[in-house]
């Protein structure tokens, strides 16, 4: 592996010192209680002599240059003012941010020797001691901090967390309750989901399930997408015997990570998080939360120092594609393949890019075909041209997926994407036979992916859809149900199961799914439209009418919606009329 070359730390440090003055401005103190001891002035120079040199990593030759430069900068600041507890704590924050717990702990030790009453550094030392596995010592520090900062939610919460780890549940409960109480004393008053879920976790350990569930629900009102809240609620509901709801909450909370109320040190910890991996992870997070501009800005900075890194190029391409700049994505991926031709990840990224383009053409073709079926005039030449263009793009996608599967044949997702390309080829096929052959190939690829294991979230749904296309309804239902098991709260997943049940002539089983779908639709017009159709299929006219009203609200302003609404209303009226004359279904519609 190529060892990254380091910049000269000595040269880099003075350049950075100018920014250091700003960084070394006193860290905002935790909300100090009136009763808390005032921070003592820094100790005299005799004390500082005992503190020792700032801890440093001896061999930095292979370390990330950004991290090395940061540490050098902060060490130089300490050397310039060895009596400064804040400067040493600043280095501690840098180590802590980069998860070098033991050196962070030493820095906080030194800060506390210089300023014994500066409890915020005991607080931080407690956190790094806990992370480093020194549970008793961590609790000692956090207790001291919690005594000093009774009204600071994060301090109480961290103590509660440490006590829970030690199995001291009653004391942990008290600390978390104090965290919530402290929120009321902030100006303005704050409410954190993390505090409520933290307390709920202790209550679960104490088998107080009702209150735990209530707290999680309160947390989810504050932060509806808080996965940790969903997962903890799922655990509580399971204990309370509400199995179905519990399963949905557990699935919604899968891969959760606990959080804490905000701390005044958070910004510094974020700023000091250096290093390539950390930067890439942050950009991934930005992309997943749709902050493409910021992601692009950060990527541009990384690309300056790593212009030939395939991982950076691939991520930049993904961001460009998400931002609608397909040309830039293409250029970046081409370069990535040039610098690392055997990298299967780049082939998959390239495949996804081509599939994205082909999808848009596929939708155009499908909509033109639909129009033709409705008797509208459609330009056959244009359809043919679109098909040809689509087929060409899919062929490129297929080539990339094939390369990935050839380079790393034991990876399930490579075969999955190969299958998706083959399935997509069927969309642009010129005749039924070619389409059938493509689907057969897709099925073989999906089955390989299935045997190997495939991480793509839509895998089972895609497989269900392919089986549906091929008329294999039993298999369609099997994989639609598998997908729903993984995503029990996803309205679209429920709809696929409904379609599969209908394909299996099991319409009598769809009612509970339609009810679930309506609940999960969250006002999505298309899902509500499916619900209306589902209710009509089982003759639940009242339910259809209710869902139609919701659809009307959700689709307000959509001119196509009116046609659907009128058609449904007419149908319902006609069914009711039939029932009234004894020739149709139950006029009540059977309810739900």
């Amino acid at each position, binding site marked *: 592996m190529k060892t990254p070359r380091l910049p000269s730390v000595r040269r880099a440090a003075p350049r950075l010192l100018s920014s250091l003055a700003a960084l070394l401005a006193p860290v905002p103190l935790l909300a100090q209680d009136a009763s808390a001891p005032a921070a003592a002035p820094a100790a005299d120079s005799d004390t500082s002599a005992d503190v020792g040199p700032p801890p440093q990593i001896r061999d930095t030759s292979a370390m990330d240059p950004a991290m090395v430069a940061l540490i050098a900068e902060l060490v130089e600041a300490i050397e310039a003012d060895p009596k400064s507890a804040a400067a040493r704590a600043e280095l501690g924050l840098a180590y802590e941010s980069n998860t070098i717990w033991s050196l962070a702990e030493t820095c906080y030790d030194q800060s506390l020797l210089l300023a014994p009453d500066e409890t915020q550094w005991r607080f931080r030392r407690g956190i790094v001691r806990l992370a480093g*596995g020194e*549970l008793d010592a961590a609790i000692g520090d956090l207790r001291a901090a919690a005594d000093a900062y009774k009204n600071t939610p994060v301090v109480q919460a961290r103590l509660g967390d440490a006590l829970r780890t030690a199995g001291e549940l009653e004391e942990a409960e008290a600390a978390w309750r104090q965290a919530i109480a402290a929120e009321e004393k902030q100006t303005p008053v704050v409410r954190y989901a993390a505090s409520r879920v933290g307390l709920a976790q202790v209550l679960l350990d104490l088998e107080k399930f009702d209150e735990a569930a209530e707290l999680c629900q309160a947390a989810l009102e504050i932060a509806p997408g808080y996965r940790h809240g969903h997962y903890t609620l799922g655990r509580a509901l399971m204990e309370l015997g509400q*199995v179905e709801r519990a399963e949905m909450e557990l699935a919604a909370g899968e*891969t959760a990570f606990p959080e804490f109320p905000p701390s005044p040190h958070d910004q510094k910890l974020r700023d000091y998080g250096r290093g390539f991996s950390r930067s890439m992870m942050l950009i991934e997070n930005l992309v997943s939360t749709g902050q493409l501009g910021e992601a692009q800005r950060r990527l541009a900075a990384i690309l300056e120092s790593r212009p030939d890194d395939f991982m950076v190029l691939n991520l930049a391409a993904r961001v460009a594609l998400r931002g609608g700049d397909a040309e830039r994505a293409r250029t970046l991926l081409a370069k990535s393949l040039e610098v690392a031709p055997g990298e299967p990840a780049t082939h998959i990224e390239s495949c996804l890019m081509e599939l994205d383009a082909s999808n848009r053409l596929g939708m155009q073709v499908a909509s033109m075909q639909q129009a033709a079926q409705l008797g509208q005039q459609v330009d056959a030449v244009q359809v043919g041209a679109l098909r040809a263009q689509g087929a060409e793009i899919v062929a490129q996608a297929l080539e990339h997926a094939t390369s990935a599967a050839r*380079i*790393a044949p034991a*990876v399930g*997702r490579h075969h999955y994407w190969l299958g998706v390309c083959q399935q997509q080829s069927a969309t642009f096929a010129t005749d039924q036979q070619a389409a059938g052959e493509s689907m057969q190939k897709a099925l073989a690829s999906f089955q390989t992916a*299935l045997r190997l294991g495939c991480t793509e979230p839509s895998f089972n749904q895609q497989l269900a859809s392919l089986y549906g296309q091929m008329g294999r309804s039993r298999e369609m239902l099997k994989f639609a149900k598998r997908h729903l098991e993984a995503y029990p709260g996803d309205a679209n997943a429920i709809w696929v199961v409904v379609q599969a049940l209908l394909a299996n002539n099991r319409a009598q089983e769809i009612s509970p799914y339609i009810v679930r779908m309506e609940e999960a639709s969250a006002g999505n017009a298309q899902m509500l439209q499916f619900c209306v159709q589902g209710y009509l299929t089982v003759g639940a006219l009242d339910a259809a009418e209710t869902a139609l009203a919701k659809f009307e609200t959700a689709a307000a302003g959509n001119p196509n919606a009116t046609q659907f609404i009128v058609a449904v209303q007419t149908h319902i009226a006609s069914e009711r009329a039939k029932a009234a004359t004894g020739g149709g279904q139950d006029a009540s519609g059977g309810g739900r």
Partner: protein
Amino acid sequence: MHQLNSRLALGGAALVAIAQTVHSAPQGDEAGPAWFQEVGVAAGVDFVHAADRTDAHRFPEIMGGGVALFDYDGDEDLDLYLVQGGILVPDPEGAPGAGNKLFRNDSTPGTLRFVDVTEEAGVGDTTYGMGAACGDFDRDGDVDLYVTNVGANVMYVNKGDGTFTDRTKKLKVGDPRWATSAAFFDANGDGRLDLYVVNNLGWSESIETPCVNYYGEPDYCSPNNYNAPSADVFYTYGRLGFTDSTLRAGIDAAFGNGLGLSVGDYDSDGDLDVYVANDATPNLLWNNDGKGVFTDAGLRSGCALNANGTPEAGMGVQFIDLDEDDDLDLYMTHLRREKNTYYRNRGGRFSDVSNATGTSGVSLKFTGFGMGFQDFDLDGTVDLFVANGAVQAWKEEERFDPKDAYAEPNHLFRGVRKGKRVKFALTRAEGTTNTPIYGTSRGSAMGDLDGDGDVDIVVVDLDARAKVLMNVAPRADGATWIGFKVVEGSKDAIVHGATVSIAGAAAESRQYRQAHPTYSYLSSNDPRVHFGLGSEAEARDVRVRWPDGTVEAFGSRPAGSYHALKKGAGEKQQGEGETR
């Protein structure tokens, strides 16, 4: 014990002298007395693991090192099989790497001695090895051996004469993917042992990708960097041999970066279920419908993710009834910065109550792999051994061993029971032996190697000599023990997945042990179950719940020896245990 090798008695006598000294007068220091003494070299175990580590930090290099304890020659002692790494990406034209080794236990009373019999037994596979599973799958009275590899796995069928035949191709069980743990058990109640094989990820050199550690230095990746978790394989054994039943059994429905494996009837419904500890992906709990068709119940049963809903880096795992309520709990080891997790079973639903064990704080600092609960000090309460070893380098300033950036101490936690709950206290921070041994430990297997009635341990460290840890745990004078081997059929084939219980010291209490060799990490353990009895002269009211859910009572048995408990020989308990 094997009759041969009396010429080696002298060395062994010296060993025993040491062991007796330590037992009777444990060395007390601030750290507390050591519980083990390393005797590998003296006992003739000259196996040195070779991980083939390179600067490329190829992922499998850091994961291997399994071990199996099983009685391959039927002489009632535990022989030792050590799985070698070797060459990860062999040159087709080049020489093969070092192979696995089988050591026959030639101990005589008072003398622990192993002899390398790999060549004559024919079990020296040179594929880059991971782990091993042992079981008499064909029920012919001798134990067969399955070896997992980065590459095709190998099935060695025991011929019953001290040699094995490689029947991998004929039995079609040589899946070429990277496999880790494996277990034999009867999944469908037909009396034959089926085979579950855990796969890690679809690794090949071409998916390697550069990763850095906490310091920004090149190091081993997280498995999720590869985004290539692999589905496991499940073979059923029937009249026609093994059949790949992965799809039919529903094992394709969930997957992960699999490492650890344990088998047991967690829901007490009379069939054996499977738990797979995955590395950084949700763990799997395969709930058996009794016919060998499985559904993943991990998430809804509460043991796929920790209490926070976070997938952890599952490594070693064991089904164990820690709270003595007649159902199987789960304990598993994890990465540094994750605690080792204890999932308590309450009626088939698990709660992560790790914090109640007392091991959470210590485990946060280390990366645990091999593990196991045994009553090492014979006081009637199980203790816990954890083999640690990092997967990302410790910085020079933080290292335990200046020469090995991944080395960590192993840990022994003493169990202290309060009512039904047991809490564990670390005995020595710097390891389990008087002279600290630091290594990058991986597989560990437990069993009574010298037949003296206490449980010993074999540990494999990456790129180091295998460690044979003889039990010298401090114990009360007159502490007693008892062991059981659960068997069935005319050939007394060992049963996998029965639960043996005995009356406890406290009124109406019982101790339970699961009789299955697959637990820990990549390892196969002594298939017998072992109880410390404190000062009891006998084990009272011995009962076995067989894998099919039926229960038989065997009365009392005297302490101080191993007893066979044969299916059908006990008194059947009506209405108890059957598919509750």
